[in-house]
């Protein structure tokens, strides 16, 4: 699993923002498509931020994946799509790969929006 690189990216971003503002809290939103191991990520990130940002509170939140077809407007979730282990694995690397494996259940279009639950997003709360 590549949680280490993802943790490093988050930690670099927190560091870069600390130079500009007093950060109180960072909410780390983990999209379902990226399928991150929360415990592993937490462990790495806490280690990395211990020295850099000891006073920043980190919250974690997971977000379900929801799709909306650009062709017919239908809305569905990842749970509605049956994917093999191998396909889930490929998508966890690059969530955009989902369009190679999932199609609109109504009209078969692979041109759909990922409304929620793609990858990692950070919400900063600063003073």
């Amino acid at each position, binding site marked *: 699993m590549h949680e280490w690189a993802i943790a490093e990216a988050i930690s670099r971003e927190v560091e870069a923002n600390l130079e500009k503002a007093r950060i109180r809290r960072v909410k780390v939103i983990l999209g379902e498509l990226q399928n991150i191991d929360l415990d592993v990520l937490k462990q790495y990130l806490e280690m990395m931020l211990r020295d850099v940002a000891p006073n920043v509170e980190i919250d974690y939140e997971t977000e379900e994946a929801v799709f909306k077809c650009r062709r017919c407007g239908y809305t569905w979730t990842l749970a509605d799509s049956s994917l093999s282990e191998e396909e889930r694995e490929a998508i966890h690397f690059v969530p955009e790969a989902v*369009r*190679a494996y999932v199609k609109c259940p109504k009209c078969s279009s692979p041109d759909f929006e990922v409304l929620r639950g793609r990858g990692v997003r950070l919400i900063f709360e600063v003073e």
Partner: protein
Amino acid sequence: MKIYEKDPRISRIKRELSDRRVILVTGAKGGVGKTVISALLGLALSERGKKVLLVDADVTDPNLHVIIGVDPEKVKPGEAKGIEPLTLTDRIGYIGLAPYTMNRPTPLRGPEAVDAVRELLGALDYNGYEYIIIDTPPGLDDVLMDLIHLTGDHALVIVVSTPSRMSQDSTRRFMALLKDLNVENVVNVVNDVIGIGRSGRDSFNVPHDALLEEALGSIKRLKNTEAYNAIVRLAEAVDP
């Protein structure tokens, strides 16, 4: 109190790429040989002892793998401290979207293509690579603009064209755009894909090579082509 959202990939990408030599292989049009030149330049630099990573950023139509003989349906990408590039030789790595899509059609709207490229570059294990060669989609698009914003202040931007009036007209506009974007480090390569026989003045010229097609897919055969010989000279200029 203020609340705002941030993309966690940007800082890491900028930091990792600013430490390495980045080459964006671009062109105002498609079919001018961007992908061929990306691959051949990677081979030529690796022959000079450099460790080179080939990045296929043409995520809606990836085909760099065809040139270097990688079958995206067969390779299984690894991960440890990050996404691990596929190693072709001990000095050439490859990364792209094709291994994750098993080479199936993958339509991505512009902002989604940007997301895919940021994901590859943002979660990558950059371990030891000195040159990052990024093959871009044809023309001006979201991915190219994003890559220029991320690396344009230090990357070398190679602008590939053909001698055709169609390509030269597009290239004039493209060069003007790079200027507006304050990109200073630009090299023009005129690649005679069509066999027109003209060559450019202030540019590297790559001749029409009737044997290139047969060499696609084999690094060994590629190194015996005329096109490769021309790119070896480009590599000498890039890596003096």
